């Protein structure tokens, strides 16, 4: 019996030691862990930012697709004083919360970010969103697209059409969060884009939005990951879906899907980088300077149709790297597409997301 005890203790010890060794072996080489959204978006970052950097410096970039739960990840890591992420791709609203909570580093923009080629300091070159901790990267839009093959006659073209199930039959796919859906519901109900947040700030406004959503609720399939809407459209599970414009673009040009984007009522928003607390090392600073310079931001738009967050990058936007499609007309910020946008109010959402989500989840479960 004692021998058995001894044997199992030895076995356990060996297992434990070998595990520790494996763990340390993996961490030995120089690397940065970058967290992002996955899919074609992460791919564009890999090709425009990470691969050139690895080629230049040899530093490996480990990619983790956890931006969907990025704030939770940063919060738990900082709370535990065990931060394994170096750079996190995040929405402006979440960055505000993280910045207020002291979870991420404050950024001295002109020190950390490279100036434009003509010498304009970074703080003047970025289009907005420089609110302390957040490093803007792209302008993107959440908007609707439909599968051409599902509509033989007239095609939907406005937000009101999305909510018109009689004229445009078929299921819809919407993101399983209140942001965006409430704005569109109000717009479909006749509220002008600039008044939406004023209306939403009233109890009646919120009720009005949910009432409008009620009219299509039974025909909605809810999505949670950015890759789902193009998939649902191409499978013809739904006829119209909301989604990120870059993903729809990717499906259009790379997979030749018969999708059409409805630019009306696009929900425009900034997305960018944040640095978890304690991670602003000299090495990371160099990396950030590289990936946010004018050329790199313009390069990213060769792979996905998101607008660079720098003024100086705009003129460098060129053709799609794989197919040669001219990218400019596909940018959410191009004037032809920017006719009736809803500018997402990140601060409003930072304040009201808890409340709206509670109500939204309750509404969903009914």
């Amino acid at each position, binding site marked *: *019996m004692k021998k*058995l005890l001894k044997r199992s203790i030895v076995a356990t010890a060996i297992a434990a030691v070998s595990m*520790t060794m*494996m763990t340390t072996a993996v961490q030995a080489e120089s690397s940065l862990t970058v967290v992002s959204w996955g899919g074609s978006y992460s791919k564009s970052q890999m090709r425009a930012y990470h691969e050139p950097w690895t080629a230049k410096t040899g530093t490996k970039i480990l990619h*983790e697709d956890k931006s969907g739960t990025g704030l939770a990840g940063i919060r*738990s890591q900082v709370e535990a004083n065990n931060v394994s992420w170096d750079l996190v791709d995040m929405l402006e609203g979440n960055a505000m919360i993280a910045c207020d909570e002291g979870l991420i580093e404050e950024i001295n923009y002109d020190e950390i970010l490279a100036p434009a080629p003509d010498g304009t300091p970074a703080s003047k070159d970025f289009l907005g969103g420089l609110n302390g901790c957040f490093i803007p990267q792209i302008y993107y839009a959440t908007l609707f697209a439909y599968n051409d093959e599902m509509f033989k006659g007239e095609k939907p073209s406005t937000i009101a059409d999305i909510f018109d199930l009689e004229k445009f039959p078929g299921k819809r796919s919407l993101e399983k969060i209140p942001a965006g859906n409430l704005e569109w519901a109000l717009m479909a109900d006749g509220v002008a884009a600039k008044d939406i947040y004023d209306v939403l700030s009233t109890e009646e406004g919120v009720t009005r939005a949910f009432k409008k959503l009620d009219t299509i609720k039974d025909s909605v399939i809810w999505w949670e990951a950015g890759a789902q809407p193009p998939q649902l459209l191409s499978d013809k599970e739904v006829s119209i879906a909301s989604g990120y414009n870059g993903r729809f673009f990717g499906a259009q040009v790379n997979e030749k899907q018969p999708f059409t984007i409805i630019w009306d009522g696009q929900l425009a928003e900034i997305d960018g980088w944040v640095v978890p607390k304690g991670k602003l090392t000299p090495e990371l600073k160099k990396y950030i300077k590289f990936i946010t310079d004018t050329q790199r931001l313009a390069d990213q738009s060769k792979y996905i149709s998101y607008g660079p967050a720098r003024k100086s990058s705009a003129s460098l936007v060129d053709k799609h790297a794989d197919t040669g499609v001219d990218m400019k007309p596909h940018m959410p910020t191009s004037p032809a597409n920017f006719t009736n946008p809803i500018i997402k109010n990140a601060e409003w959402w930072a304040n009201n997301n808890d409340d709206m989500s509670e109500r939204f989840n309750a509404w969903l479960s009914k």
Partner: protein
Amino acid sequence: MAIPIYAGKLERTWYYSYRIICALIFLFLIGPILIIIPLSFNVQPYFTFTPEMLSFDPAGYSLRWYEEFLASQEWMRSIKNSFMVAIAATILATSLGTLAALGLSRAEMPYRALIMSILISPMIVPLIVSAAGMFFFYSSINLAGTFLGLILAHTALGIPFVVITVTATLSGFDHSLTRAAAGLGANPRVVFFKVMLPLVTPGVISGALFAFITSFDEVVVAIFVAGVEQRTIPLQMWGGIREQISPTILAVATILVAISILLLTVLELLRRRSERQRGLTPS
């Protein structure tokens, strides 16, 4: 169960409809698992049978999803991770669990029911609660996002199966055998290694298999505790299914079904061996 020749018409009808009902239930159990196997050889990226497949045209079939799977660094790494974590967790769970089962099966064991309840609690507590708890706790002691953390978590989840199977084997254990051996002059050590251990081994191995499959198939805790370097096969699949089901997932699924057939075979052979050894005749 065979139907007697003298059975009446009603009995015959009942007999056959009962058989048909059973066949349908078996189909429900096994059909879905078998249907993905041919689909994983689909040349098209669809999840349904194309006309070419239905007419058994070889052009409708291909190995492209398997090639994609084998060419993917991420999938290959997840296989390595899965096996590494599962094997380490199995060793830990089996050694600790077997020791405990030996203690639990002794008549003198104090607070038996209470201790048993604690030991099998990982099986009872809803996984999401375990996962959330481990996420907080392992984060606070710097074990989240490490192999060690994931291994310890999976060990905890596998332990109830080891404890239950080994205790079950021991409870069927005929103690007169050890007494006989002792009476014939064997010292306790010899009794343990020559008599007891061989009889317990099948239980230990099947407990180990359960622990292995528990870790190998586990995803909820992994979602919360594993970092990017610890991504396992189930985690990779979870991400894949949520985003878009590429048929690569069906190829992986087919491979996993093959693995489970293998495990099942091992388990069945063990069961037969154990029954032979314990002198139980198949009833």
